[in-house]
């Protein structure tokens, strides 16, 4: 039983071909799996282990190191709010608190606090599915998220794969 769907199996082969050692493909394949499924499930890790000639424990060890890879199901929209030093003094924490309260019971939106996003000249900054939004306020941040929820805004895929 394959975790990856047919087009992603092909994409996975392409990814594997980029590296002299298949283990290097663990991160790109994990991104691919998240694009397909929204999170990195055990089944996904098992197949990645299979494809890269490693073990599931190996894949788990690697993937759990990285904060972008989610090992629990999470919302379709991941809202990452920076609270690092520049955003800290320009209102980042307020935006975070507001979004957390606003989306506390909305399973399709996961709000998380993140470290510096390299957008400090536009602080406070946030990302929705890794699309940048700068100089946000609590209210504009909600508007932005709602834009994604209603489909007027769209994010790229992380793996670079086109997802139907």
């Amino acid at each position, binding site marked *: 039983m394959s975790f990856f769907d047919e087009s992603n199996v092909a994409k996975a082969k392409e990814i594997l071909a980029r590296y002299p050692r298949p283990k290097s493909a663990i991160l790109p394949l994990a991104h691919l799996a998240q694009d397909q499924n929204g999170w990195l499930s*055990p089944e996904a890790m098992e197949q990645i282990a299979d494809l890269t000639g490693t*073990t*599931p424990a190996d894949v788990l060890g690697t993937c759990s190191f990285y904060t972008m890879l989610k090992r629990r199901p999470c919302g379709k929209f991941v809202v990452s709010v920076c609270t690092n030093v520049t955003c800290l003094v320009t209102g980042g924490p307020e935006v975070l608190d507001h979004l957390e309260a606003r989306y506390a019971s909305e399973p399709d939106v996961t709000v998380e606090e993140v470290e510096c996003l390299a957008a400090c000249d536009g602080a406070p900054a946030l990302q929705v599915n890794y699309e940048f939004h700068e100089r946000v306020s609590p209210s504009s941040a909600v508007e932005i998220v709602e834009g994604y929820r209603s489909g007027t805004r769209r994010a790229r895929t992380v793996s670079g794969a086109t997802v139907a």
Partner: protein
Amino acid sequence: MTTAEPQAQKTTVTVTVDGVTFEAQPGELVIKAAQEHGVYIPRFCWHERMEPVGMCRMCLVEIEGGRGYPPACTTPVADGMVVHTQTDAVKQIQDGVLEFLLINHPLDCPVCDRGGECPLQDQTLAFGPGESRFVEEKRHFPKPIPLSELVLLDRERCIQCARCIRFADEIAGDVLIDFVDRGDRMQVLNFEEQPFDSYFSGNTVQICPVGALTASQYRFRARPWDLSTVETSCTTCSMHCRGAVQSSSNRLVRLLAVDSEPVNHGWLCDKGRYGLEWVHSEHRLIEPQVRDGGVWSEVSWPDALDRAADAIETAKELHGADAIAVLGGARGTNEDAYVWSVLAKGVIGTDNVDAQLGDGLPAEFVLGMERAEIADLDRARAIVVLDHDLRDEVPVLFLRLRRAVLELGVPLVDLAPAAHGLSAHAAVIARTVPGEPLAANVHDEISRACEGRQGRVVVVVGRGNLAAAADSIVGAAAELARVHDVRFLSALRRGNVHGALDAGLAPGFLPGRTTLDAGRAWFTDQWGGVPAERGLDAEGILRAAADGKIRVLVLVGADPVSDFPDATLARRAIDAVDTIIAVDGFESESTKRAEVFLPCTLWGEKAGTVTNLEGRVQRVGRKVAPEGTAMDDWRIAAELALRLGRDLDLATVDEVTDEIARVAPAFAGVTSELVKSARDGAVLPVAGHLDEIVLRTGELSIMADDGSGTSWDPIKVHGEAPEEPADESEVTAHVDAPALHVWDRRAPQPEAPARDAYALRLVVGRALYDDGRLVSETPLLQRLVRDPDLRVHPSDLARIGVDSGGQVKVTSTRGSQVVAVRADAGVPAGIACMDFSADALGAALLVDAGQPVVDLRVESLR
């Protein structure tokens, strides 16, 4: 290293550590070089047998002229290097690291298995400030979680040294645990539902420097200060890993590995490590018994021995000595085997004696082949594996092989019948087909693998397939014997089988690797008589028994019904014998019908010597008093000899050892004194390499003497080579002793039928956790036994028309069975692999010892 050529260049470097100046090997790590010269640098993550990682930062030192504080564990020595390990700055760093390690440590030493032998605890005692400066909440994790049936993990105690993870990856190759998460949330873990099922998992418990990993078997059983310890060798298989066995209240509670450079490098397999409980099993029989009118009753030893001696004597008088046969003897010590050999061959006069149960290789080959030592693997030109999966057969030999191939880069030529744990790293793979000669190009392939390399070719040879006659393996070995500068390393697995064969427990042989014919005169002198003619091997004995020609069958720790590959034949034989005399610790399928049962001591209850697969004689230690009135096997034999009219005049086990050294040619020089003082034992025959024997200078210590807390490291016994090697002429003193047997390299012609397209040829190997007594009487291991299934190539599975996991009916000349079948791309097409197991599900009922190979018809049940 040869000292013949004078070296112009200096091959060592001069290093000074804390004012001590010494010579060290270039490339050696500072931490190790310093230790060898008496300076102990504290450490947690470094382990001598693994790649350094420099993680814990406990070993930082100052090096003159260098910048900062490099870790001694990752810094190689250099000429002229001056190292300081005791400066104020270094001490402050060590205190700092210790404090960092403790801030999140639960300090639950009173309830920790490691309490009392914990380096973190030891160093903390020495550390000082009683009060922690850390007032914050400690890190919390749910208390112990199982990583497997055998190993539990307490993440709060873990100090993230990665020793366990590195062991699983580097040494065992079982990447089943890893660090999960990062930073101070980083923890050791297995993947979801995939437990840490490694045959070697127990090693991680031993090398864990704190009590984070504990053994489910040992947990809370004892505190270190209640334990007493004896150095020994594990005889669960023929590797004989060095160990230290510990008991509390006359029960064996723990076996720890001792680091022996030539043998086990500080490792044990889990079967050996945890297979202690069977000794104290409630099923054990510990009093002599006789059967009267079909009913067992306990009797005194003299009565039981009289009964056994009478039966032997009567059979000999009525039917001749040939009507008596002895099977077994591979489970005890060399002394046990030797005295049984004297009893059978010297006193009774029968040569129908075999320590192997049709699951080994002919004694002519094993005793006479040109032998390699285990360490030869490391410097081999190439290694040829002519066996099945060594991981299941001789696990720690597998580790040695894995190291030689992966770490030292020795090319591997894989001639196993199916893929195994090392196939992925093989330079050449040429699968052998049971009953067929080796592929024609094997010699070319071996030369290709060896190209540009020096050293010997080592052929690891075992009985890789219980369903094919041993002849085909001897034939292949004869073929390989043509390789230039080749040596053979036996992989026969049974406990002390090599000791038993050396003691003469094989037809046609006498003790000390000499044949009946060559040794006739000498042993007649020593013993007063030997059998007139070569007798029968196990298969022959069972056939003769089935035909009613064996009247008395003595089973010395042998259970042919469960162990002989052809269970049908074994069952018929056992049923047909008049009198069975059993020397054993347990009742078995074969001893159920016995007339006399003589309870013997088991490992841990007896002292003596054993011989491992490379011919190394080492000691086993007695740690607990025997259960009940169980007696050593050799003493039972001596008592029987006395009742048969011969006083062997052997009072102690040392006397037996010394007699062996005196009369058995290959054992010349291997006296009780030598084996007690030789740190690593001695490889037979010792003449010619006496100078290589390292004598021990100190006793084994579990805790380091200096309290520096190396307890979790593989325990080291120090030693040094004797300055004046013993005089070789002393060792070879018996000028008239017979010569050692040499294998004639004759290749038996396998005469297997051609394979037909509808049948699969059967390959039967043993799983590590088989249904042997040690496993079945150790509940912890019993749970790990896997159901034997039939493994076939996916294309064959498709042809049969079942899914992997489905049931099929298999039929051999012996009969039919229903088994589960599984696809395995490592099994060549046309071959079927199955584990040996005596119960109705295993291969034992399919094997026909009368056939050179077993071909199976496999049908889907639908």
